[in-house]
């Protein structure tokens, strides 16, 4: 399934939802399951010292007990998503809210945050008054919005709302732009299930996550339905 993971960060830069699809998943206790490389003998190819072995995620030193929090335990979810068997299988293998506070989540957000700062600082609209300048410095969804970044192995799509909600999805590198999908998730899944739901907060504390089954199922079904049309 060309979708590897999906994340939501709130305006306090905390990860309020993380969904990981895939086999070589990082199991909640934090150590990385070595995914045996399928192709024979992937040669060591890091001539440049600045890369250490890139065949798998670094074992995150800081343990992730705190990632399985009271309300959002990292549990494997059996969801009745689309009938497509392969997507089904990867959904069942993935985890929910298992990586919210671990190294990956922090690195990912840090990367996006720095790229977003560059996008905002390199293109600033001309402003006359001091107030306009001030309005532009807090550049939430500013004049130049970050949309995605890509490496040879994956592509990370990013959408930020004007009130500071950040939606992130990591997919196969050849995937088309998924800005519209992230907006669709904000409007037709997050809004009804969380904002219009009086039992769900919109202002999250440090450890609070979204773990409603209905929300997780809707997200799974959405990504599963997109599976074929991604590239």
């Amino acid at each position, binding site marked *: 399934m060309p979708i590897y993971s999906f994340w939501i960060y709130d305006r306090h830069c905390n990860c309020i939802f993380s969904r990981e699809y895939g086999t070589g998943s990082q199991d909640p206790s934090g150590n990385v399951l070595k995914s045996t490389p399928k192709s024979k003998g992937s040669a060591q190819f890091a001539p440049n010292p600045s890369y250490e072995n890139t065949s798998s995620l670094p074992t995150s030193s800081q343990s992730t007990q705190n990632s399985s929090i009271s*309300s*959002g335990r990292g549990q494997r979810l059996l969801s009745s998503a689309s009938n497509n068997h392969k997507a089904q299988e990867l959904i069942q293998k993935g985890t929910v809210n298992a990586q919210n506070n671990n190294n990956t989540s922090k690195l990912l957000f840090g990367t996006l945050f720095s790229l977003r700062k560059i996008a905002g600082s390199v293109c600033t609209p001309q402003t006359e008054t001091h107030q306009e300048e001030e309005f532009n410095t807090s550049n939430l969804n500013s004049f130049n919005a970050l949309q995605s970044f890509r490496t040879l192995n994956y592509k990370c799509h990013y959408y930020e709302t004007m009130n500071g909600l950040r939606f992130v999805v990591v997919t196969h590198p050849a995937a088309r732009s998924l800005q519209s999908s992230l907006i669709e998730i904000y409007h037709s899944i997050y809004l*009804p*299930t969380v904002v*219009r*739901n*009086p*039992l*769900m*907060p*919109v*202002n999250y*504390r440090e450890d609070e996550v*979204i*773990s*409603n*089954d*209905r*929300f997780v199922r809707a997200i799974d079904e959405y990504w599963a339905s997109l599976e074929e049309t991604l590239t």
Partner: protein
Amino acid sequence: MPEEFFSKEVSAMALEYLVNECVALSVRVEELLASDSVPGTLAGDVAGLKLEQDKPGTVDFASNPKFLGLNNLYRVERYGYEIGYKITDCIIYKKSVQEGVNIQLLEVLEVMKFICRDVWRMFYLKQMDNLRTNHIGTFVLVDNNFRPLINVSSAQGDADTIRKIQPYLQLPCGLIRGILASLGISAVVKADVIENRLPAVSFNVQTSLAK
């Protein structure tokens, strides 16, 4: 200005958020009345945020023991009652003057139909799905897709959701009771989720045929 009556409209979303929020408000009032602290003054613009942990946008009120307390349920029901008591005449006036439909409200069954059709369409933009009676004063009104509960779900699973929506069901109960009272019929209204098939709700109305 009869023709103008009921012509003005607002967003249904505005009404829905207002109704949802009045449950949290009721818990806050309970909390304040219990703690009989010095009444809030409009100091600065963040007045009344006395409950430190009850920050805007959080749902701490739902974990407050008073949330499911009887006082809270009663107050929310009372909101509904007051609306129901006053709205009956307005609807009947609108029906008869503007739409030339005069509604016969002599019999209790007719009143129930009036609630299922006119009141529910006005409040929840759809009619009730089913009305049953045992002809000795008990009625069961069923709404298979009760609008305010469509999006409600608790993070701790369905059982917890059903437990926590009780206060939200009190307002429509009060509404029905208020309408009946305005027509001289005293009744007891109870609402519950149909075999936890959220958002299907059935309202059980016991009228004592006081009239």
